[in-house]
C-alpha cells in the first residue's frame, strides 16, 4: 500500500511529541544490577536462570539481547518489564527502583511506562484489532471512546488502520505483530520490550516488523529492548547484549549506518559532547 505510507509516517511523527525530549541526553532508562533468579522445579532440582546479570539501556536506544536457549535472556526481559521478580538484585526504570513495587504500582507501570510485544503476538482472539489496541488504553483509564480514537491512531502508525475491524484470525502473522506493536505503543510508553518479536514470522514479515520497530524508535525515541535469536533483528539494533548461563557476557555496538532524524542526530552529538566533557 504505497499510498498509505506517507500518511502513516506523518501520523508516526505526530506521536513523537512526548518522547523526543527524553532522547536529548542519552540517559539510562532501564538498568538491572546483579539479578539472580532460581526456578525450583522439585526437591534438589532447580535451574539458576540468572546468576548476577547487570546491564544498562539508554533512553531512545534499540538493543537486542541474544544468547543460547536457557541463558536467561527472557527471564531478564520479564524482570525489566516487571512481569517477574528477581530473587536478588535491582531493577531500575526511569530513575526509580521497580523490582519491589506493590502489585498496584506494578500495574500502573505496565499501563504507563512499559509496552510488551510477544513471540506469539498474544492478541485476544475474540476482539478485533482495534479492540485489542484500545484495551490497553482502556486499562490505562481512558474512556472507551477516547481509547478507540487513540487505538486507531496507533493502528495508523503501524499502517493497519484499514484492518481495524478484523479479528486476529483474519490477519497475517506480520499484521498481527504490527497490531501488537500498536497495542504496545498506544499508551506512549518509554520502553517497549519484545520477546522474540519475529520468532513466529517468515523473513518478509520479519523485515516488515523490524523496520516498523526501527521507524517508531527513530521517530518517537521509544526505547526498544528485544530478546531475539534472529541475527536480522540484532543487526538492526544499536547494540547487542550477549548472555550466557545467566550473566551478560559482552555488549557490542552495531556499526550500522542509520539515518537518524536530524534532531535525534543532534541529540547524540550533544550526548557525545557531554561525555567528552566528563572525561
Amino acid at each position, binding site marked *: 500500500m504505497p499510498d498509505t505510507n506517507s500518511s502513516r509516517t506523518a501520523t508516526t511523527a505526530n506521536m513523537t511529541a512526548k518522547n523526543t525530549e527524553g532522547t536529548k541526553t542519552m540517559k539510562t532508562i532501564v538498568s538491572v544490577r546483579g539479578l539472580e533468579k532460581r526456578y525450583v522445579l522439585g526437591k534438589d532440582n532447580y535451574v539458576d536462570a540468572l546468576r548476577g546479570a547487570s546491564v544498562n539501556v539508554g533512553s531512545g536506544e534499540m538493543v537486542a539481547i541474544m544468547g543460547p536457549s536457557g541463558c536467561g535472556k527472557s527471564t531478564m526481559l520479564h524482570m525489566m518489564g516487571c*512481569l517477574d521478580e528477581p530473587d536478588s538484585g535491582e531493577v531500575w526504570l526511569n530513575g526509580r527502583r521497580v523490582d519491589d513495587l506493590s502489585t498496584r504500582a506494578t500495574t500502573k507501570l505496565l499501563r504507563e511506562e512499559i509496552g510488551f510485544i510477544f513471540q506469539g503476538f498474544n492478541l485476544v482472539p475474540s476482539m478485533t484489532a482495534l479492540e485489542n489496541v484500545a484495551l490497553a488504553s482502556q*486499562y490505562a483509564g481512558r474512556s472507551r471512546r477516547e481509547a478507540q480514537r487513540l487505538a486507531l491512531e496507533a493502528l495508523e502508525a503501524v499502517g493497519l488502520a484499514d484492518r481495524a475491524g478484523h479479528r486476529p484470525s483474519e490477519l497475517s502473522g506480520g499484521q498481527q505483530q504490527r497490531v501488537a506493536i500498536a497495542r504496545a505503543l498506544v499508551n506512549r510508553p518509554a520502553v517497549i520490550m519484545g520477546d522474540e518479536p519475529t520468532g513466529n514470522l517468515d523473513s518478509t514479515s520479519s523485515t516488515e516488523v523490524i523496520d516498523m520497530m526501527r521507524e517508531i524508535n527513530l521517530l518517537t525515541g521509544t526505547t526498544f529492548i528485544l530478546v531475539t535469536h534472529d541475527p536480522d533483528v540484532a543487526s538492526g539494533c544499536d547494540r547487542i547484549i550477549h548472555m550466557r548461563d545467566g550473566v551478560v557476557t559482552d555488549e557490542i555496538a552495531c556499526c550500522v549506518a542509520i539515518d537518524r532524524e536530524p534532531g535525534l542526530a543532534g541529540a547524540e552529538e550533544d550526548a557525545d559532547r557531554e561525555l567528552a566533557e566528563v572525561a
Partner: protein
Amino acid sequence: MRIFRNVFRRKMRAILTILGITIGVFALVVMGSMAEKINLMVSGGTRYYSDKVVITDASTPTGGYSTTPIAVNRIQEIEDVPGVARASAGIYILLDEESGMSMNGIVGSDMRNQGYETFELRMAEGRDLTAADRDKAVVGCDIAKALDAKVGGTIDLRGKPFEVVGIYAKTLTAPDNTAVISLHDVQQLLYVQLPAIVQAQVDPDELATSITAYPDPGVDPDQLASTIEGTVSNVNASGPQAFIDQFKSATKIFNSIIFGVALISLLVGGLSVVNTMTMAVLERTREIGIRKAIGASHRQIVGQFLTESAFIGFLGGATGLLLGWIAATVVNALMEQSGTVLFLVTPRLAIGAVAFAIVLGVASGFYPSFHAARLKPVLALRYE
C-alpha cells in the same frame, strides 16, 4: 457484545451451563407460582375465617371440612352462648365427589349471616343470591369456566339443573371455585347422598354441615370458640387460629419443597457455573497473562470474569423464567376446563427468580475470577 462472544466461545459448554441454570430456575418458577397461588388462597382463607367461629359435629377433626351433618336447630343453642352475635347454618359439599384434584365445591347458606359477614364478594355479572331463591345459583369465576356458566343459562350441579343468576368477580381464593345455592337446595343435594340408614333419622330441612358463629364486637373469636365448646355439647368449634394453624402446616410443606428446589438448583447450577468458569479461566490463562502484561489490574480481571458468570446466570434465569411462565400458562389453560387455576406467576416471583440466577452466577464466578486475577503474568504467558 464482547461478553456474549466470550461466554459463547465454547458454544456447547455455555449452552449446557445455561441449561443447568434454566432447569433450576424453571423448577423454581413452576413450584414458586404454585406456591404463590396457594399463598393467595391461604391469605384469602385466613381473611375469611378471621372473624368467625366454625362449629361442626364433634366427630369431625378441628378445622376440617365436615361431611357429618349437624342439625340446623342447634343455631339457637349456639346463639345463646354469651358473646355470639349471630349463628348461621351452611352446607359445603364437593361439586364432584369422584374428582380428588378439583377444588370446586357447592355452598348453601341460610343467609342469616347477611350483615355479619365481612368477607366481601363483588358481582362481575348478574345479581347475588337471596334467601328466597330456589333452583338458582351464583357461581365463582373459575367454576363458571369449568361449567360453562353464563348468566341466564343453566348449569348442572350434582345432576340437578340450576339457573345461573350471577357470577362473582375474581377473588383469587376459594369463592372462585364455588357455586352458591340456597340452603334448601343444597340440603336436598346432600340428603340424597346420605346412606339410607341416616336418611331415615334426619329431616332434610334440618341438615347442615357447619354452623358459623359471628362474635359480638370486641369478643375474641378464638376465646369464643373454646367457650362454645365448653357450653354446647357434642360440637367442635374452630376459631381463626385453628384455620391459620392448619394452613400454616400445609404451606410449610409446600414452602420447604420450594426451598428444596431452590437449594438443588443452587447446587447443580452453581457447580456447573464454577466448572464452566474454571475451564474458561484455564483456557484463557494466556489471555489473562496478556491482559495483565498490558496493564489490567486485579479488579479489572475479576470484574471481567464475574460479569461473564453473571451474564450466564442471567441468561439461564431469563430462559428458565420464560419456560416456567409458558408451562404455567399452558397448564392453566389446559386446567381451565376443570376450573382449577394451579399457577400464578407474580412479578415478585419473576424478578426473584432472575435475580436468584444472577446472584448464583456471580457467587459461583468468585472462585474462578480470583484465581484468574492472582495468576502471575509471566507464568500465565508461558502457559500453552
